[in-house]
């Protein structure tokens, strides 16, 4: 198992090296910068040329100015804090619950068989379906956001944990058993290390899903956060402000992706297999 995975990695890296031609032309980051400039330029020109009305899509310069203005406001940072708080609490609850349940279910073939049909049925239910229920139960409080976030993230992580546990090498497990490892020791020393890359993949996917649902809950239910501010700006006709807040959510998303990727790399740096996500 381990050797096979290592083989895969070396082959992949050799491939990457071989397919990279001698560097010619401009470096990648310059090209990326050009792309950003072109994009902002097009955005700036669209309302000016009259492709869209400036009251519906203000030029980029105006939106960026509004965003910079926001950065100086306490209210903006409170909204960011509220969104991130819902994101973090929801994510942590979902990950802990999915990890514990995933380990228990995954390690018992009986439970795996028993729960399979229910998981396959509950998993595809879109968590936005729960919006009315959340409103009914919690109103516009943080709990509404949490219900949606936890439901959506739980399945992402659970599925990955189950894959991870299923990937545990039988020989390693039997070896551990023959040396008299206890259940807890087996989980800690055999199952957990194998499952870790899968868990990290699950967390990475869940982290971006959690942001989507945090914003959704704020936008639709009105629980506090950036999404609520966007809805307020829109209904109040502060269009540049709305676009500025939307840019801010995009940057939050980029930041979350970057951080989870770095954490994943750090946590798995010792691991022989930095594997791709299971396509399920």
């Amino acid at each position, binding site marked *: 198992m381990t050797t096979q995975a290592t083989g895969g990695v070396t082959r992949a890296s050799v491939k990457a090296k*071989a397919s990279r031609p001698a560097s010619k032309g401009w470096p990648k980051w310059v090209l990326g910068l050009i792309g950003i400039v072109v994009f902002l330029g097009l955005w700036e020109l669209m309302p000016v040329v009259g492709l869209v009305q400036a009251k519906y899509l203000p030029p980029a310069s105006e939106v960026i100015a509004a965003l910079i203005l926001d950065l100086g406001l306490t209210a903006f940072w409170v909204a960011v804090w509220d969104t991130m708080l819902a994101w973090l609490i929801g994510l942590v609850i979902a990950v802990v619950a999915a990890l514990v349940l995933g380990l228990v279910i995954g390690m018992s073939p009986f439970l795996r068989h028993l729960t399979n049909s229910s998981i396959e049925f509950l998993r*595809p239910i879109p968590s936005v379906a729960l919006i009315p229920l959340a409103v009914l139960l919690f109103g516009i409080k943080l709990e509404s956001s949490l219900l949606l976030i936890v439901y959506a993230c739980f399945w992402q992580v659970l599925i990955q944990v189950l894959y991870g546990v299923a990937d545990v090498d039988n020989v390693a497990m039997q070896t551990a058993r023959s040396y008299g490892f206890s259940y807890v020791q087996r989980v800690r020393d055999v199952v957990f290390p194998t499952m870790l890359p899968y868990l990290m993949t699950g967390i990475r996917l869940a982290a971006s899903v959690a942001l989507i649902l945090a914003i*959704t809950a704020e936008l639709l239910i009105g629980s506090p956060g950036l999404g609520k501010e966007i809805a307020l700006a829109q209904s109040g006709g502060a269009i540049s402000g709305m676009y500025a807040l939307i840019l801010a959510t995009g940057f939050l998303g980029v930041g979350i992706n970057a951080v989870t990727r770095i954490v994943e790399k750090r946590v798995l740096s010792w691991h022989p297999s930095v594997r791709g996500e299971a396509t399920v």
Partner: protein
Amino acid sequence: MKTLKSVGFLLGLPIILLLWWWLATSGAPNFFVPTPAKLLTTFVETWIGERLITDVLPSIMRLVVGVLAAIVLGIVLGLAVGLNRTMRAVTEPVFEFFRALPPPVLVPVLMLLVGINDGMKIAVIISGCIWPVLLNTIEGVRSIDPVQNETSRSYGISGFARIRYQILPSATPTIMAGVRQALSIGLILMVISEMFASSSGLGFTIVQFQRSFAVPEMWSGIVVLGLIGVALSFIFQAVERRVLRWYHGLKEVENAV
């Protein structure tokens, strides 16, 4: 015996959960949770009939049109960008930003730009679903095996034939992973575009039930959404199994070594 056992595993837990639900709700009436029987009759009364045609089917149509358009656009654009190193580098930061942007924020934007109509709802679905397909297509095209490329070249397979017979099939596993993400994003966007600004559709109807405290009706709406989600997932799995039969077989062989 064996089939009996697998049927037991298939239905065992759902039956236990149903029984538990029934026991928990049939004693004292609960405002928030209807009994299974009540939910079932409400479901039939509410959704089987006129609402199916006025609210459910139009929602599903918009979802299907939006998702299909996003898939086609995403693959075509992804091929165009992915096959060119410079284009890849130029577009990467902008595309990564759009992928990271939570799709629901597109609803108020498109309400402004398109107005409140069917076109807006479809535009929301397209503009949210296209990114995973587009970025996965780019990734799938980028990571094509160099030996496969040399094989195509040495046998004179180029241009459209190369895309048709080599590049697209080889990128399909990655593309399908993107399509799966697009499907769940599409469903979310279908619901919230209707909840946000609409006078019909599934999302709108469910919110109306909630606002008028018609709790069993609201639950039945949640069930409808759940059923659509499950149906989409099954359809996707069936299509994926067909399209990627070679890929799953190949992986099985590789993993067995």
